[in-house]
């Protein structure tokens, strides 16, 4: 008995809330959801980039028919672009036939015209791409590249008439198209989702006790309302970094290196602290789930959106930490969130202390 009593009642309540989650296997559901989100986002990005990526098409590149007066210029521009092959045609008719039969994926018909305003000549190109095919996007991306090459060549020929020449482009690399997405969208999403869910569950656990009337039973036990709220918040706050850690582990197993894991988990813990405190206060204030949850989700979205006013948005902070480009400002933000979380927590405890538990029901 004495050993039981020595345990902090807050810990007991926290453990009770956590075990109820695990017993109901809801936590499994939560992890499944997040797995689904991750799979969904990576599917999204893989699907989208495969629309753009020429190497995803096995048929050995895209063949572009070139014809018209400016055939020579077009031919050179196509030849200079990677992943596309030029096929010259004598007449527009022949090109159109070849396109219709699928022998070329797209064609360019170029001619020289005088611009309406001013003198000199410009190359007038009519580019034709296949309509509503899975290759359309890819073909258009390649056409854009070809035409930009043509534009650059033509600009160089007109260098004398230009105030300043366009800068030469740095060399091309075969960078992973998913890189930026992984760090700026996927990782922040995976890290902040547990926090938001924790906050939402905090609303539930408070309102449920009030709506079911079980809070009174807890009150009969030798614990104060502050202890109850403490325990419930701590359980939910602890949950978020645990899930975040799981994610970082999974990502690293997938070959995605995430730098500064400790700072990231602190960030997750701090945001979880902020939203959980917020959820608890809403739950105590409103006492019923429907309005409390609605307000929680709307206000969290507003606050998260309004965070763009900060020098660094939380998701940018997470991205910079994960990609290992943190600045002093980034660490400053993390410290700031921790500070805000602690202050809010302390204020909430004071607020709870002044609440008459009998008034809740």
């Amino acid at each position: 008995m004495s050993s039981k009593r020595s345990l902090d009642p807050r810990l007991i309540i926290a453990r009770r809330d956590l075990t109820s989650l695990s017993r109901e296997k809801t936590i499994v559901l939560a992890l499944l959801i997040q797995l689904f989100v991750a799979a969904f986002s990576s599917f999204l990005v893989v699907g989208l980039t495969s629309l753009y990526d020429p190497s995803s098409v096995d048929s050995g590149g895209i063949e572009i028919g070139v014809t018209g007066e400016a055939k020579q210029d077009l031919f050179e521009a196509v030849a200079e672009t990677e992943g596309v092959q030029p096929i010259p045609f004598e007449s527009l008719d022949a090109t159109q036939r070849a396109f219709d039969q699928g022998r070329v994926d797209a064609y360019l018909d170029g001619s020289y015209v005088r611009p309406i305003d001013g003198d000199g000549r410009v190359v007038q190109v009519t580019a034709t791409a296949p309509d509503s095919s899975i290759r359309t996007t890819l073909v258009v991306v390649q056409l854009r590249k070809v035409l930009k090459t043509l534009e650059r060549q033509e600009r160089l020929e007109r260098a004398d008439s230009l105030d300043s020449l366009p800068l030469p482009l740095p060399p091309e690399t075969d960078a992973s198209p998913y890189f930026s997405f992984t760090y700026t969208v996927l990782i922040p999403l995976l890290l902040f989702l547990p926090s938001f869910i924790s906050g939402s569950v905090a609303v539930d656990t408070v309102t449920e006790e009030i709506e079911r009337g079980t809070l009174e039973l807890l009150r009969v036990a030798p614990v104060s309302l502050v202890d109850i709220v403490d325990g419930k918040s701590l359980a939910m706050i602890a949950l978020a970094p645990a899930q975040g850690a799981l994610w970082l582990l999974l990502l690293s197993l997938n070959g995605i290196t995430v730098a500064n894991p400790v700072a990231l988990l602190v960030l997750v813990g701090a945001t979880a602290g902020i939203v959980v405190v917020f959820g608890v206060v809403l739950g105590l204030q409103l006492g019923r789930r429907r309005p409390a949850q609605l307000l929680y989700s709307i206000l969290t979205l507003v606050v998260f959106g309004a965070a763009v006013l900060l020098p660094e948005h939380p998701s940018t902070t997470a991205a910079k930490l994960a990609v290992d480009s943190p600045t002093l400002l980034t660490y400053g933000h993390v410290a700031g969130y921790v500070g805000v979380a602690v202050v809010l927590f302390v204020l909430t405890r004071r607020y709870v202390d002044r609440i008459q538990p009998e008034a809740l029901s």
Partner: protein
Amino acid sequence: MNPRKLLRIAKWEVTKNAGGVDKRTVAIMGLSVVAMVLVAGLAASGGATGLDSGLYRVGVDETSPYYAPAAEDPAFIVQEPNPTAVERGNQELLFDGIELENRPRTTKEQAALSEFRASVDGYNSQLMSEDDNQTAAYPVSVSLVYLEQGGVTETIQTGGSDDGTGDGATAGGSDTGATAGGSGDGANAGAGTGETGGAGDSDTGALGGLGAGLTGGSTSGTPGDIQPPFPFESLVLAFLFIVPMNFVIQAYGSTMLSERLNRRGELLLVSPVSRFDIIAGKTLPYFLGAMGVVTAITLGLRLSGLTAGGGPIAVLAILPLALLFLSATFCGAMFARSFKELTFVTVTVTVSLTSYAFIPAIFTDVNPIALISPLTIVVRDLQAQTVTAGDFAFSTAPATLSALVLFALGAGLYREEDMFTQRSIPMKVLDSLSTQISSKWSALKLSMLLLPGVVVAELAGIALLFALPVAISIPLILTVVVVVEEVAKSVHVSAGFSSGRYDRSVRTALTVGALSGAGFFIAEKSILVFQFLNPGLREIPTGQAGLLGGLVPEGVPLAVVALILFLLPLALHAVTATVSALGARRSRRAYLLAVLAAMAIHFAYNYTVVVTLVQ
């Protein structure tokens, strides 16, 4: 069902709601919605820096021509060139003049270089637009035309060398399909940095060129203006329509679950109204609310000129989605045992339905896949494209039917025994099914009822897997199909046996199994109608594997076709369902084993058909 009672319950739900939410909450809610709009406006007005700001560090001297583009792109932090910093991994790119001094080795450095290339390109466009001599600055003028290719079937397989797949489906001939749509040659003002931003939340650029970029119709301008028909706008729109649903289902889920707390719902249950009146009445306000918001958004988009079209069709296409959201939440609220669980259920509903609506809609330009999601219809209607009745039916019917089935299953639990007790989830699933059973013929009915769910699950599987290479995707999709179909055919039979609605004789098992298989077969043949509505689905190999029903190999006599189309699948479904039923008759464990056996039979059959007949 009694409309008057239904309406009274609906009215009561609304007034009780207004009483339950006090004025202060309403005021805060109103203020926060205003704040949300303000925040969105702020983000849209460019007050927000990009998501990738400060991601890469580039060492470039102030004298270098590359200094300006690096300094202008928020993705880069400009530093003094420092070789030791590069070695330590604290600087990704190092330029001397315009010479790249370090060889990018890590993925981060490569990504930085490719990003930098894009921002130099963007800088060049800006430079050129400021040039006095615009003819020299823009020496190439392009007009982009989209033309349908005749004789080329849309396959995801490599090239078009084999024209074995149904060439009768696409009408040959080259009609110029230059789609109608606002040709936005004027909307190129802000098209400076085309590549940057990537997957960022750059709603601004997206919405700016909405009319032009969305349709991918003919556009003209300089090469830099060419926008690939990437339906990013449709994704933004998708969120616009889906987000309100989440708030609605949150409130709806709360109200449904709170009926179950402290036996509150008992009062309604004992009153002289049917449970369908109660459910419909309590759902109606939320459904109307969701549709009202959707209508407002559509009107707003239309009137503000952001989209070219948008009208009743868009709103009607959202209707099944709204129903699906509500029905899934209703089911969830009936199953959940606490608020905490309901939160997770709601999130699951949100995530899975959003992706169902979302993933196919990304491929707006690829007909058959895109139409799986009703959002595609919405996007097309907003673009003022025509939507055929067949397309509309194809994309909305499965969702509508699934929603109705979910409501029916949830309604099975809307009774005292299930609402106010803490039963385990599997028991509740069995309850929700077994309450629908009245005789052996119910097996037929239930197999048919579950089919919309099966179709949605299979279509979702196709949508998820079709991007994979055919060699992997076909076996995977076959597995998904087999598992989904066998579970759907047998789970209600098992429920019937365990609840004692069927007696545990072999005779009953045989009858029920055969009926279940037959019901499934009848319903499955209705997929043929869907395929008829959307011939494109046949052209995608994955689609073929999934919806095996409509396979008609060429050059096979009609009698054989009839045999293959009708008798074989009927026999298959009846046999596998009977196998499961025989297992279900004995015990839970025997049922699981029997279902596995049924799956194996089904898989072997499907695999043989696909391998022998398709190739």
